[in-house]
C-alpha cells in the first residue's frame, strides 16, 4: 500500500463520521455554488455586453425623455453606424398586475439592426415589421404569459394610461447572454400616435452602434458635447457601463452575499477541522506505533493532511454533483422566467465549479494543518503512553 493510499484509507476508519462530514461540507459547497452563481449571473449583463454599443439618456434623470429629433443628430455623428431609440412603456398584465415584466416601445427596423443578437424566425420578423400593432415577446416571457404567435395581448399602461392591445407577431430568443428573453417590444409609432399631443415625439433613450469599439468613449463624448448647448443634455455610456451601473445599485446586496460566502467557507472549515481533530485524538497511540516503526513526523503529518484533503475532495465532488443539476435544471428556468430583467442568464459558470473544487481541496488541507502539526510534535513515548 502506498502512503497516499494509506492516508485516504484512514478516512474510511470511522465511516459514519466521514459520511456525516462529507454531507456537512457538501451542503456548504452547494450553498457556495448557489451564491457564487447569483453573483456571476448578476454581473453577466455587464460582462457579456456588446462592446460596440453606446446608450444616451437624459443627463439628470431617466424619468425625463429626450426629444425625438435627437436621433437624427446622433445618426450624423462620426463613428455612429446605426442608431435606434426606445421608451420604457411600463405596461402591466391586467390579469396579473403584480407580475413585473420589462416592456419597451421601439423602432422595429433599427432596433433589430442595433440589437443583432435578437433572433426571430424570418417570417415572424417580417410580420412584426409590417404590423403596426405587432410585438416581439421573449421566449421566457411568452411561456410565462402563456401567449403564442398570432395571439392578441392587452397591456394596462401605468405611465401611459389606458388599455393597449398588441398582436404577438414573433417570439425572440437571444444569442447573447446579456440580453434577456423576458422582455416585450412593440412599435413606438403605435404608442406615439395614441398619445395626447403634449406627450408625443418623446423618446426614452438612444442606443447607437459604432464602427470601432475602441472609440466608444470618444463618440460618446462627441454626442454629449453636441447636446450640451441644448436644454436637454445627454449622458452617454457604453452598454457595459450602463449595465454596471445597474449592478452597482445593488452593490450592498452583492457585498452581503460576499460576506455570507466567506462565512460559509469558514463553517466548512470548522466542520472539517472538527472531524480531523477528533480522528487524530482517537488515533494518538497509533501514530506512536507508526513512529516506533520508523515513520518520521513528516509522514504522520502527511497522513493527517492527506486524510482531510481526501474528505474535502469527496465533499467537493458530492456538492458539485448536487448543485450543478439543481441550479442549471429547474432553478435557472424559474429565475430566468421570473427575474429575467435582473438575471438574463442564470447558470453555473465553469469557473465557479473550479473555484468550489479548489476551495474544497484547499480548505480540506488547511483543516488538517493544526492537528497534523500537533501530532507531528508527539514523542513516541508520549504517544504510546496514551493507550487506553
Amino acid at each position, binding site marked *: 500500500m502506498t502512503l497516499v493510499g494509506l492516508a485516504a484509507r484512514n478516512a474510511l476508519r470511522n465511516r*459514519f*463520521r466521514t459520511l*456525516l*462530514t462529507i*454531507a*456537512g461540507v457538501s*451542503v*456548504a459547497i*452547494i*450553498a457556495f455554488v*448557489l*451564491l457564487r452563481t*447569483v453573483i456571476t449571473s448578476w454581473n453577466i449583463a455587464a460582462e457579456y455586453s456588446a462592446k460596440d454599443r453606446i446608450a444616451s439618456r437624459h*443627463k*439628470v*434623470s*431617466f*424619468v*425625463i425623455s429626450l426629444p425625438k429629433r435627437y436621433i437624427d443628430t446622433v445618426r450624423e455623428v462620426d463613428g455612429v453606424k446605426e442608431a435606434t431609440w426606445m421608451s420604457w412603456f*411600463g405596461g*402591466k398584465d391586467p390579469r396579473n*398586475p403584480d407580475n*413585473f415584466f420589462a416592456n419597451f416601445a421601439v423602432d422595429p427596423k433599427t432596433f433589430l439592426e442595433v440589437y443583432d443578437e435578437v433572433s426571430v424566425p424570418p417570417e415572424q420578423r417580417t410580420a412584426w415589421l409590417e404590423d403596426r400593432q405587432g410585438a416581439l415577446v421573449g421566449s421566457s416571457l411568452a411561456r410565462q404569459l402563456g401567449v403564442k404567435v398570432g395571439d392578441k395581448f392587452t397591456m*394596462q*399602461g*401605468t*405611465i401611459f*394610461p*389606458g388599455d393597449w392591445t398588441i398582436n404577438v407577431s414573433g417570439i425572440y430568443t437571444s444569442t447573447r447572454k446579456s440580453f434577456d428573453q423576458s422582455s416585450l417590444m412593440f412599435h413606438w409609432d403605435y404608442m406615439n400616435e395614441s398619445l395626447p399631443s403634449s406627450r408625443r415625439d418623446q423618446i426614452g433613450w438612444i442606443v447607437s452602434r459604432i464602427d470601432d469599439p475602441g472609440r466608444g468613449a470618444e463618440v460618446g463624448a462627441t454626442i454629449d458635447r453636441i447636446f450640451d448647448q441644448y*436644454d436637454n*443634455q445627454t*449622458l452617454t455610456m457604453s452598454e457595459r457601463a450602463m449595465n*454596471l*451601473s445597474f449592478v*452597482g*445599485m*445593488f*452593490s*450592498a*446586496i452583492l457585498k*452581503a*452575499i460576499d460576506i*455570507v460566502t466567506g*462565512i*460559509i467557507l*469558514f*463553517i*466548512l472549515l*470548522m*466542520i472539517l*477541522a*472538527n*472531524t480531523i*481533530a*477528533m480522528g487524530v485524538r*482517537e488515533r494518538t497511540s497509533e501514530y506512536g506505533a507508526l513512529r516506533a516503526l520508523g515513520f518520521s513526523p513528516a509522514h504522520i503529518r502527511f497522513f493527517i493532511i492527506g486524510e482531510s484533503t481526501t474528505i474535502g475532495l469527496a465533499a467537493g465532488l458530492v456538492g458539485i454533483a448536487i448543485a450543478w443539476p439543481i441550479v442549471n435544471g429547474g432553478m435557472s428556468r424559474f429565475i430566468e422566467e421570473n427575474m429575467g430583467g435582473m438575471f438574463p442568464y442564470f447558470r453555473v459558470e465553469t469557473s465557479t465549479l473550479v473555484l468550489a473544487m479548489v476551495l474544497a481541496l484547499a480548505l480540506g488541507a488547511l483543516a488538517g494543518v493544526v492537528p497534523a502539526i500537533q501530532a507531528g510534535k508527539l514523542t513516541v513515548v508520549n504517544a504510546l503512553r496514551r493507550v487506553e
Partner: protein
Amino acid sequence: MVPISYNLRSLAVRKTTTIATASGIALVVFVFSSVTMLSRGIEKTMSTSGSPDVAIVLRKGSDAELSSGIETPSVGLILASKEVKRRSDGKSDGVGEVVVVITLEKLGTDGISNVQIRGTSEDVWKFRPEATIVEGRMAQPGADECVIGRAIRGRFKGLELGGSFELRKNRTLKIVGIMDAKGSSFESEVWADLDAVRSAFGREGVVQSVRARLSDASQYESFERSIENNRQLGLEVTRESEYYKKQSEGTSAFIAILGNIVAFFFSVGAMIGAMITMYSAVANRKREIGTLRALGFGKISIMSSFLLESLLLALLGGAIGAGASLLMGFVSFSMVNFQSWSEIVFSFEPAPGIIVGALVFAGVMGLLGGFFPAVRAARMPLIKALKE
C-alpha cells in the same frame, strides 16, 4: 437525572471541538438574526412612512407616485372633499407633490444611483409633523433650495449641508437643511419647492400624488368612493400605509428569500456539525456511559443528559451569534427599492423577539443534531460499554 455539571465539564474538556461546533452554530445564528433584523428594518422604514389615516390619490392604473400624474384643478377638488381633515388655520390637511428621480454619483463605491426628489409645498411640515429639521434650516418657498433626509446625507456626491447639485442645466439646488423623519423612507429623499421641481422637469400644471389626512380613519371608504366614482377624474385611492407596504414588498421578499435559502443551508450544515460532535462524544465516552448505567441511571436519563449537552453546546453558539448580530444595529444598508428605482437606506432593527427566536433556532439545531447520538448512547448495552 445525570447532573448538569457532568455535561458542562465534558464540554470544557473537549475545548477545540466545543469551540469549533459552537462557532459554526454561532455563524448560522448570526446570519439568521441579521437577515431577520434587516427584514424588520425594511418593514419599519416603510411602515413609519405611511399613516393609516392618510389616503394617497394617484392616477388610475399607476402603482407608484413616479408614474402618476394629476392635473392641478383636480387637486383642489380632492382636498375639498368633506372627509378631509381641516387644520386649525382652516385649510385642508393635505399636499399635492411631484416626485422625480435624479442620477447622482455614489460616494464610497464607484458608480451612479438614483435619488428621489420630492417637490412639495411648505404645508408639508404641517402635514408631516414627524419630519423635523435637525440641522440647518427649512428651504425658502420659491427658492432653489432643498433639505435632504439624514439617511442619504454623505452617501452621494454633493448631498451634504451646504452642498448643491444640478436639477437641470443651469438650475442648481442648494442644500440648506438636514431632515429627520423618525426613520421613515422620507429620510432617503430630497425635499424641494414644488414649483422649482415642476419647472425644472417640465411638469407645470400637474402633480403626481395628492395625500390627504382624513378627519377619521373610518372615513376612508367614503372618501375612496367619492373620488373613484368620479370617472372623469380617473383617479385611484389607496391608504398610505398600504401604499408603502406594497412599495417595499419586492425588496423585502427578495431579502427574505435570499436570507431563508442561506439560513436553510447554513442550519443543515451546522446541525450536521453538532451531530458529528455528539456522535464522537458518545463514542469516546462508552466506558463512562457504562459506568453511569451501572450506577443505576436509566436509559432515559442517559439520553436526556446527552440531549442536554447538545442543547447547551448549541445555546452557547446561539448566544455568541445573537450577541454578534446586535452589532449590526450600527450598520445601515442602502439599496435600490424595486418600485421607485431609487436608493433607500435601511437599518438592521434588533428586537427581543428576534434574539429569542435565534436562541430557539439554535436550540432546535442542537436537539435535532443531538437526538440520534443520544439515542445511541441510551441503547448501548451495559456489558459492551463497560468492556471498552
